Structure formats: C-alpha cells, structure tokens
C-alpha cells in the first residue's frame, strides 16, 4: 500500500496534467471553429470551379489538353497530408494505415511521396521508403502557398512525363468526432460529368476554349489541394479536441480513484493510531 504522501503527490501530478489537457482542448476548440469556418467559406469557390470545369470539358474531347489525358500509371506522385504535432488521437495512425494500403494497392508502381506535415515524413523516414524529398512541408506556411507549390510541381512533372498520375491522401472532415482518411486523384484531371440529357448552354468563350482550359485546369488542381488542406486542418483540431477531452475525463476518473485510495489510507492510519492509544492505555491500566 502506497503511503499517504505518495498518493497526495500522485494526485497533484495528475491534476497538473489534467489542467494541460483541458487547456489544449480549449485551444483546439477555438482553432477548430476558425478552421471549420475557413473550410466552409472556401466551398462556394471550389464548387463553382468544378461546375465551370465540368461545363467546359463537356464540350471538348478528352485529348484536347494534356492534363486530361490518362496514361498507364507507372510512376505516381502522392501528397501525404499529416500533422506536425501529435496528441491528436488516432488521426495520424489512421492516415498511416491508409498510406500503407495505398502502397499495397500499387505494388507495381513507383510511388513518390511529398509530405505535408512532419508526422508522415517521420513515419516513412523510419521505414526508409518512397520519399520524393527529405524535408516535409510544415504547416508554418499558409495553405494557399503549400497548395500552389504542390500543384505547380505535380503538374510540371506530369507534363514532362516524369509521373503518370498524382493523388492526395488526407483526412476528410466530417465533424469534430469523425474524420475520414481519403484518397483523391489530382492528375489526370477528371472533371465531373454533365448530365447527358441536360442541354449544354452555348457560351461565348474568351479568350478561347484552349486558353481557358490551360488556365482553369492547373487552377482547379490547386483549389482541390487547397480544399483538402483546409479540411485536414479542421480535422486535426477536431481530433485533438476529442482526444484531449477524453484525456481530461480520464484524469478526472483517476483523481477520484486516487482520492478514494488516499481516504482509505488516511482512515487506516487513524484506526491504527487509535488502536495503539487504546492498547497502550489498557496495558498501563
């Protein structure tokens, strides 16, 4: 049985930890609000972009722009979006499982990863495989810059024939409690299909359909990455909030358990002292 003093010390330490997890939870909740708003606010842009692209590509054949042409996948580029920091529950390990599955599904292909977030890079550095470059992009950069850089790089590689496809692995945001690890294809661009029966509106196009496409296609890849990054950030904060919430309540349970133990120990000590006093009195009497 641990001594009274040990238990008191232990309770104090658990209480300290609980204060930290509680603070982290509140910080995550505030950040989640902001990240969630950002993801929602950018949605109209992304949706309209998809609509324009679907509309445009419906009136050209698939081979009218190199970014639309699919070829046999031998080399694939992948953006792997994880977090820089831990303490966010199963968020990253779910993503690692997704990435491992992705590698298993593409055994023949040469897969090169581009990491956003330290955790993914650390995971694959330990396994020594697949990295396009050593240093991950960290979240210190604003997401629009990360997206622009990644899109530019992948499109360049695709057009030069250095890769035959590009994917993004990230965590889709559903709610603070649930994030779904997702694979989405970036290249070749596959525009949403317009309903066949629906009458295609005749548009005037400026400057020309080719120019519009070569302008819109790279932009749409960038927007897709950007949107994914926003969702990933929101998911990270959501996951961290949930994890810290349960850590805080675990700490509460532990404290009440320890308090009970402490009271028992104190009671036992008192009883023992009483017994000693009584028996001494009897012996003297």
């Amino acid at each position, binding site marked *: 049985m641990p001594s009274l003093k040990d238990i008191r010390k232990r309770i104090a330490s658990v209480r300290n930890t609980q204060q930290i997890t509680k603070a982290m939870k509140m910080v995550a909740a505030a950040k989640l609000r902001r990240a969630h708003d950002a993801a929602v606010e*950018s949605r109209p842009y992304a949706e*309209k972009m998809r609509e324009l692209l679907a509309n445009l590509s419906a009136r050209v054949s698939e081979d009218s722009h190199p970014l639309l042409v699919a070829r046999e996948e031998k080399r694939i580029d992948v953006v792997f979006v994880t977090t820089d920091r831990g303490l966010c529950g199963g968020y990253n390990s779910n993503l690692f499982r997704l990435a491992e599955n992705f590698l298993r599904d593409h055994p023949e292909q040469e897969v090169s990863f581009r990491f956003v977030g330290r955790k993914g890079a650390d995971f694959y550095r330990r396994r020594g495989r697949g990295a396009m470059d050593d240093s991950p992009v960290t979240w210190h950069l604003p997401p*629009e810059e990360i997206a622009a850089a990644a899109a530019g790089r992948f499109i360049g590689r695709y057009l030069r024939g250095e890769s035959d496809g590009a994917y993004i692995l990230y965590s889709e945001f559903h709610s603070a409690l649930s994030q779904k690890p997702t694979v989405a294809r970036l290249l070749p661009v596959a525009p949403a299909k317009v309903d066949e029966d629906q009458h295609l*509106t005749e*548009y*005037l196009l400026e*400057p020309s359909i080719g120019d*519009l496409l070569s*302008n*819109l296609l790279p932009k749409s890849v960038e927007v897709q990455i950007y949107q994914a990054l926003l969702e990933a950030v929101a998911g990270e904060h959501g996951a961290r909030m949930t994890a810290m919430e349960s850590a805080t309540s675990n700490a509460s349970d532990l404290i009440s358990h320890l308090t009970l133990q402490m009271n028992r120990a104190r009671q036992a000590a008192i009883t023992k002292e009483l017994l000693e006093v009584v028996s001494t009195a009897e012996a003297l009497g």
Partner: protein
Amino acid sequence: MAGDISLRVVTPVRLVLEERVDELTAPGPLGQLGILPDHAALMTTLDIGQLSYKQGGSTSVVTLAGGYAEVLDNVVTVLADAAEFPAEIDTARAENARARAERALEETDPTDEEALAAASAALQRALVRLETAARR
C-alpha cells in the same frame, strides 16, 4: 430597371460580394468587359484589375487579382484569386509590395520568363491596389 444582374464575387477565402447591380465592368483578357442586363452566356478569364459595378446612381469598385467569370441568365459569378474593397486596402503594404516587385523586376534574369511574369504580375497587383485605394 434596378438591379437586373445578380453579381457574386467569390475567392478561395470567402464570399466577397453578393449584390443586385445594374451593370458592371470587368478586366477581361481582351480589354475592359462591360456587362449589361441580358448579356449572352459567357465564360472568360479575368486579368488583374478593377471590377466596377453600378447600383442606382452609385458606382462601387473592388480589386481583382485575376480569375474567371461566368455570365449566365443575368447571373454573373466571378471567381477571383483575391478581391478587396477600397476600404480594405492597406496602402502602406501595397506601397511596399510595389517597391518589392519593382526591385524584383530589375533583378530578375531577363531570360527567365516565368520569374519575369510572376514579378510583373505582382507589380500589377500592387499598382491596381494603390489606384483603387486612391479613389477611396
């Protein structure tokens, strides 16, 4: 005929503007692009410049850092990389950006077309911002 066109300006960051307007002028790729009610369906890229629109007697302006526009059934949707109202423009920051862009233009290797284009686009963005801010 007040407000026959519904104008929506969206950027990746937010919905900037959603208004009924009488007419608007946008920076098209082939020059200024005026849009009146019942304009034919149109899809176009937009250059860096000012988008101005009239409501009743008053004209308002937003800066656009390039993008796309769709006109369909009197609904104009502008997808801009960035858009700002005159009141939102930080003149000091824009001035700095202009100085930086001018320096970049001078220092860039003239054979590097991509860098040159990026620098001149940055300069143009700064100039448009300053011009818009001056009208405030």
